[in-house]
C-alpha cells in the first residue's frame, strides 16, 4: 500500500476537477479523498497498490477536464491510515498554494443541445449549465467555488438535479456546483418599466417586442445589456437619442459565425476567438453590403460582434429576425453597467421599454471583453468576462504583496503576490466614484480570497487621479508604502512584463499621462533598464493650455498645432474657431505653463483638420475615426523628421496645409509616417526588439509604419493586457518587481 498527497493549483475549481478526480480514482481503484482548499486549489489524497496508483496518475494526466489549467502540482508521499473508498470531502479552509478564480464560460454545445431537445427535461431552460460551462466568477461571493459560496445558494437542488449531482457516472453534472433545472433553478420574467409583469413565455414575448422595434434591458451573466433591432435605423437612432450617446459604437450579438460573416469579414484567427468559451466582442471589418444599420457604429470601418454565451441569448436570438441583436452594456451615460433590477428601474427608465430579468444575483460586475486584430496580431482592448480575474505569472517573485491602482480611464487594478499579478476585470473610468468603489471592492475580494495584506500601493504619478483617494485609504489601512510610477513607463513595462524583458527600448504612444516634468506626455521613446529609464525621444512639445479641454475639443487642439507654424489668427480660421474663441485661446496661450507630447492629441488635431471628427463623445473617438477614415488609402510622400530629441510633428501640419489629395490617402499617410518616424528614432537606440504600448498602439497604420520601417527588428505589443490604460496596473507591477530586485 502506498499513499500520496497531491495538491493542484491553476484553474482547478469550477471546472469539474473534483468529479474528474473522483472518477479517475474509481477507475484506477485507489481509495482516498478530494477536496477544494480555500486558496482556490484542490487537494487529493490517494492510497492503493503500486499498480492502481500508477494507473491513477496516467489517467489523471491524460484526461484533465477541458477548462482546467494545471499550473502547479505537488506530490508528497504520506504515512497513514488505511482509507476506505473514495470521497469528495467538504471544502477546507486551509491552503498550500494559491490557485485561480475560474472566469465565466460561455454555454457549451451539449447544454445548448439539451435546451433544444423537446424530450429533455431542460428543454427551453435558459440557465442550463454543466461542469464545463456557465457563469463562475460573476456569481462567486468567495472561494472556494462551492455552490454555497455562489449566488446559486438561493436555489437548492431538486431531487432530479441532486441525483445527477451525486452520480459519479454523470460526467457533466456529477459534483457540478452551478447546475439547476426548470424545477429548481432561477426564473425568468419580463416586465414593463412601470413594473407590470407580462404573462407568457418571457423569451418569446421579448423576441416579439424586439421585432416590433422595442428596446429591452436583458439580465445576463455579468450585467444587463440593452437589446434592440440592429437592422432598423429608426430603432438604433431612438436608442442613441434616449441614451444621449451620439456615436459610441454598439456591440452586435449573433447566433453563429456564419451569420456574422454576412455582416463582416472574419479571418480564421478572428473566428477562433469569436467561438472561444471566453466569447469576447471582436471588432471585425464591416462588409460594404452589410444590412446592419450604419448608426450602430457610425463613422467606423469595424463593428463589434460577439456570439451568444448563455442559453437565454441563444433562444432569444432564435426569435428575432436575422438572429442578431444590438447588445450594448446597460448603463446610463457616466454610470457603470447595471447589475440589478433596481438599477435598471432607477437609471434606465426612459431608455428601455421593458426588462427581461431573472432572480439569480450578479455578485461581480463583469463587462464583455473586446478584442481587435491589427496586422494579424491580437489586441485586447477590454479585459473582462472570460479573461478576468485570471492571473499573469511573472519571471520572479514579489518581495511583498502589493496593489496597483492603474491609471484613471478604462481602468483595472491589480493584486500581486508570489510571482502572480491578478488584474481585476475592466472596471471602467475610475474618475467616477461608482467605478472607483467597484475597483476597491474587487481588490478587497482578491485580498480576502488570497488572504494577503499589501505592503506597497502603486499609483500613477498623476496627482489629479481619483485613485489617489483609494491609495491613501489602503496605505493607511495596511501601513503600506505608496509608490508612484510614471504613466508611460508603466505602459512600456506592461509590454516588457508580457514578454519577460527587464531592459529595452519602448515606444509609448498614448493620449496623455503625467510627465516627470509636470507636462502632458504621450509620445515617448524610452530606453530602460530595470526600474530606471531615460526619455530618449518624444513628439515635439506644443503648448497645452487648459489641459483636458483640448482632448474634448479637437479643433482647439488643431488651432494650437497650427499656431506653431502660422499666426494664431490664421490657425484659428483654419481650425474653425470664432473670433472670440481665438482671443480666448490667445489668453490661454499667454499664461500657459504646460506642454504636451501626446500622440492622441496629434491624431485628434489631424482628424479635425480633415473634417473626419471634431467632437469627442467617447474616449479616443477622433483618433479612432481617423484610423477608420484611412481605409483603402494609399501612401503619399511625407517626412516627419527627428530633430534633436523631438519628433517634429509640426512638419505634418505644414504638409497638410498644402496637400490636396483624398482624405483616406492623407489620413493613412499621416498615421503611417508617424509610425515610420517613431521607428527611425527608436532604431537610433540599437534595440533588440521594439516594445510598443499606449492607447494608440492598436492603430493599424501606425503599427504598419513602425513594422515596415524597423529594419527587421521585431515590433511587439501587449498580448495579455490592453495596451490602453487597462494594462497600466501590470506595468506598475513589473516596476515594483524591478525596483525591489535592484535594491
Amino acid at each position, binding site marked *: 500500500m502506498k499513499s500520496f498527497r497531491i495538491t493542484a493549483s491553476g484553474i482547478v475549481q469550477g471546472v469539474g476537477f473534483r468529479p474528474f478526480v473522483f472518477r479517475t480514482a474509481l477507475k484506477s481503484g485507489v481509495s482516498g479523498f478530494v477536496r477544494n482548499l480555500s486558496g482556490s486549489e484542490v487537494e487529493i489524497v490517494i492510497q492503493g497498490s503500486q499498480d492502481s496508483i500508477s494507473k491513477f496518475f496516467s489517467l489523471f494526466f491524460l484526461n484533465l477536464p477541458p477548462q482546467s489549467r494545471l499550473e502547479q502540482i505537488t506530490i508528497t508521499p504520506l504515512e497513514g491510515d488505511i482509507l476506505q473508498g473514495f470521497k469528495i470531502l467538504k471544502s477546507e479552509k486551509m491552503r498550500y498554494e494559491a490557485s485561480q478564480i475560474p472566469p465565466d464560460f460561455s454555454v457549451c454545445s451539449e447544454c445548448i443541445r439539451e435546451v433544444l431537445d423537446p424530450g429533455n427535461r431542460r428543454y427551453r431552460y435558459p440557465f442550463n449549465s454543466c461542469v464545463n460551462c456557465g457563469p463562475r466568477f460573476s456569481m462567486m461571493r468567495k472561494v472556494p467555488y462551492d455552490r454555497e459560496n455562489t449566488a446559486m445558494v438561493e436555489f437548492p437542488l431538486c431531487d432530479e438535479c441532486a441525483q445527477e449531482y451525486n452520480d459519479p457516472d454523470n460526467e457533466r453534472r456529477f459534483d457540478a456546483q452551478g447546475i439547476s433545472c426548470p424545477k429548481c433553478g432561477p426564473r425568468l420574467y419580463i416586465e414593463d418599466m412601470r413594473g407590470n409583469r407580462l404573462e407568457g413565455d418571457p423569451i418569446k414575448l421579448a423576441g416579439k417586442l424586439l421585432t416590433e422595434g422595442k428596446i429591452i434591458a436583458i439580465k445576463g451573466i455579468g450585467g444587463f445589456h440593452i437589446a434592440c433591432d440592429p437592422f432598423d435605423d429608426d430603432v438604433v437612432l431612438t436608442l442613441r437619442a434616449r441614451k444621449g450617446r451620439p456615436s459610441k459604437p454598439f456591440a452586435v450579438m449573433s447566433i453563429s459565425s456564419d451569420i456574422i460573416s454576412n455582416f463582416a469579414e472574419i479571418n480564421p484567427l478572428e473566428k477562433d476567438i469569436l467561438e472561444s468559451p471566453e466569447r469576447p466582442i471582436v471588432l471585425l471589418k464591416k462588409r460594404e453590403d452589410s444590412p446592419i444599420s450604419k448608426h450602430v457604429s457610425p463613422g467606423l470601418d469595424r463593428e463589434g460582434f460577439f456570439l451568444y454565451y448563455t442559453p437565454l441569448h441563444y433562444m432569444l436570438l432564435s426569435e428575432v429576425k436575422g438572429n442578431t441583436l444590438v447588445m450594448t452594456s446597460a448603463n446610463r451615460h457616466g454610470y457603470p453597467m447595471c447589475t440589478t433590477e433596481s438599477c435598471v428601474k432607477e437609471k434606465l427608465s426612459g431608455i428601455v421599454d421593458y426588462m427581461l430579468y431573472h432572480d439569480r444575483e450578479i455578485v461581480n460586475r463583469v463587462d464583455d471583453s473586446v478584442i481587435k486584430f491589427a496586422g494579424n496580431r491580437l489586441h485586447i482592448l477590454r479585459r473582462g468576462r472570460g479573461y478576468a480575474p485570471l492571473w499573469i505569472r511573472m519571471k520572479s517573485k514579489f518581495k511583498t504583496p502589493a496593489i496597483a491602482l492603474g491609471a484613471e480611464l478604462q481602468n483595472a487594478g491589480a493584486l500581486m503576490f508570489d510571482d502572480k499579478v491578478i488584474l481585476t476585470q475592466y472596471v471602467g473610468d475610475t474618475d467616477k466614484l461608482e467605478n472607483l468603489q467597484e475597483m476597491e471592492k474587487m481588490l478587497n475580494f482578491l485580498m480576502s480570497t488570497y488572504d494577503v495584506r499589501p505592503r506597497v500601493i502603486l499609483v500613477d504619478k498623476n496627482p*489629479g487621479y481619483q485613485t489617489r483617494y483609494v491609495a491613501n485609504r489602503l496605505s493607511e489601512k495596511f501601513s503600506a508604502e505608496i509608490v508612484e510610477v510614471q504613466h508611460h513607463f508603466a505602459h512600456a513595462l506592461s509590454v516588457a512584463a508580457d514578454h519577460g524583458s527587464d531592459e529595452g527600448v519602448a515606444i509609448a504612444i498614448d493620449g496623455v499621462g503625467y510627465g516627470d516634468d*509636470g507636462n502632458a506626455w504621450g509620445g515617448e521613446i524610452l530606453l530602460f533598464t530595470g526600474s530606471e529609464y531615460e526619455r530618449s525621444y518624444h513628439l515635439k*512639445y506644443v503648448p497645452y493650455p487648459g489641459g483636458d479641454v483640448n482632448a474634448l475639443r479637437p479643433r482647439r487642439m488643431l488651432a494650437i498645432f497650427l499656431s506653431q507654424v502660422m499666426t494664431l489668427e490664421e490657425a484659428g480660421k483654419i481650425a474653425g474657431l470664432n473670433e472670440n474663441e481665438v482671443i480666448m485661446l490667445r*489668453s*490661454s496661450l499667454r499664461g500657459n505653463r504646460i*506642454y*504636451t507630447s501626446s500622440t*492622441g492629441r496629434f491624431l485628434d488635431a489631424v482628424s479635425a483638420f480633415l473634417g473626419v471628427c471634431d467632437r469627442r463623445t467617447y474616449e479616443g473617438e477622433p483618433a479612432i475615426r481617423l484610423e477608420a477614415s484611412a481605409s483603402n488609402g494609399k501612401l503619399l510622400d511625407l517626412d516627419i523628421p527627428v530633430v534633436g530629441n523631438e519628433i517634429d510633428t509640426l512638419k505634418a501640419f505644414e504638409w497638410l496645409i498644402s496637400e490636396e489629395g483624398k482624405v483616406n490617402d492623407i489620413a493613412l499617410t499621416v498615421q503611417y509616417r508617424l509610425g515610420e518616424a517613431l521607428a527611425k528614432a527608436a532604431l537610433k537606440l540599437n534595440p533588440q526588439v521594439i516594445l510598443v504600448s499606449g492607447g494608440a498602439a492598436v492603430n493599424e497604420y501606425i503599427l504598419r509604419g513602425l513594422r515596415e520601417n524597423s529594419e527587421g527588428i521585431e515590433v511587439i505589443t501587449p498580448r495579455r493586457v490592453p495596451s490602453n490604460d487597462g494594462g497600466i496596473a501590470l506595468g506598475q507591477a513589473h516596476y515594483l518587481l524591478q525596483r525591489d530586485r535592484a535594491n
Partner: protein
Amino acid sequence: MELPDRKNVITLLHGAGGTYMHSLIRDVFLKLNDGFGEVGLEMMDDAAVVNGIVFTTDSFVIRPIFFRGGDIGRLSVSGTVNDIAMMGGDPQALSLGVVLEEGFPKDMLEKIVESIKKTAEEANVHVVTGDTKVMERGNLDKIVINTAGIGTRPRQLDHNIETLRKSRQPSRWLVPTNLRDGDKIVVTGTLGDHAIAVLSSREGVGFESNVMSDVAPLNKMIMNLLEVGGIADAKDPTRGGLADLLQDWSEKSGLGIFIRESDIPVKDEVRAAVEFLGMDVLELGNEGKAVLAVSPEYVKDVMDALHSDPLGKDATIIGEVRKDLEGVIMETVVGGNRYVGRPLGDPVPRIC
C-alpha cells in the same frame, strides 16, 4: 525649455490657493503659531479672534487694476471686510498700505482711492490708518495694496449661536467645527464671475464678455442672516474657489460633504468661457460670494432672506454635510459622482 522647480523655489502655484499654497503655509508659516488667540493662527481661518476682536489682513495684486465690475480699490476693502464677516464679526476699521511702482499715474491712484472710499461707505467701515511706499520701476508691477481690518462681536452673532445650540454645541464664532451632519450647503450666488470678468478685461488678450466681477462687501448680508439664525459657518470662496473651501470644511470638521454639480449656479456666459479656457468653475476665485453651512430647520428662512437681498438673489442650496461620507463628493452633470479635491494649481490633464 525652462520648467519651474516646484520644490525649492516659490512659484506662482504657491499663491494660487490649493495644494501648493496649503503645504507652503503648513511648512513655513505655521511655525509662527504659538496658540495665542481665541481663534488663532493654527485654525488657518479667514480671520483671527483676539480679546473679542476679529482681526485679519490681506494683500491685493490684480491685473488689470480696473476690470469690468470693479477695481483693486473695491477689491481691497471687500476682501478684508468679508474675511471679518465670515467669522461672524462686524467690521469697524481698516488700515491701508499701498506700495506703488515708480511712474504710477497719480490720477489712477486717485481713482483707486475714490473707489476705496465708496466701498468703505457701502460696508460702513472706516479707513483709520495707512502707509505708502514707492519702489523702483520694474521692481513691482504697478501697485500692491494691503489692508488689515478689525471687527467687533455683534449681538446678531450671539443670537445665531443661540439658535445653533438646539442642534449642537457650537463655538462662539463661525468656524468649520460647527458643521453637523445634515447641514445644508448654500452658495449665495453665481460662481466664476470675478475670474472671468478679470480675464476678459486683460489688455491684449481680453475677450468679448458681459460678465461683471461680483466684488462686493458682504457684511450687511451676513449680518441679516445671523439675525435669522442657523448659520453654522460662512466662508468666502476666493482663491482656490469652492473646491478649496469645501475641502477645508471637510478636513476641519471631519465630516463628508456632498454637492450636486447641476445645482451650482453659474451664468451661461461664464460657463461657456470657463469651458473653452479649460478652467474648473469650482476652483475659480469669487469676491462677492459666500458659502454657508446652514442648520436644516433654518434653511428655508435663510434662503428667503437671501433671495430678498440683491447680493443673494441667485442663492442656491447645492448640497449637504454628510457624516457617512469621507471628503468632498460631487454628483456630476455627465453622470456619476467624483471626489472634489483641493485645486492642484495648474490644470492637471487626466483625459488620456
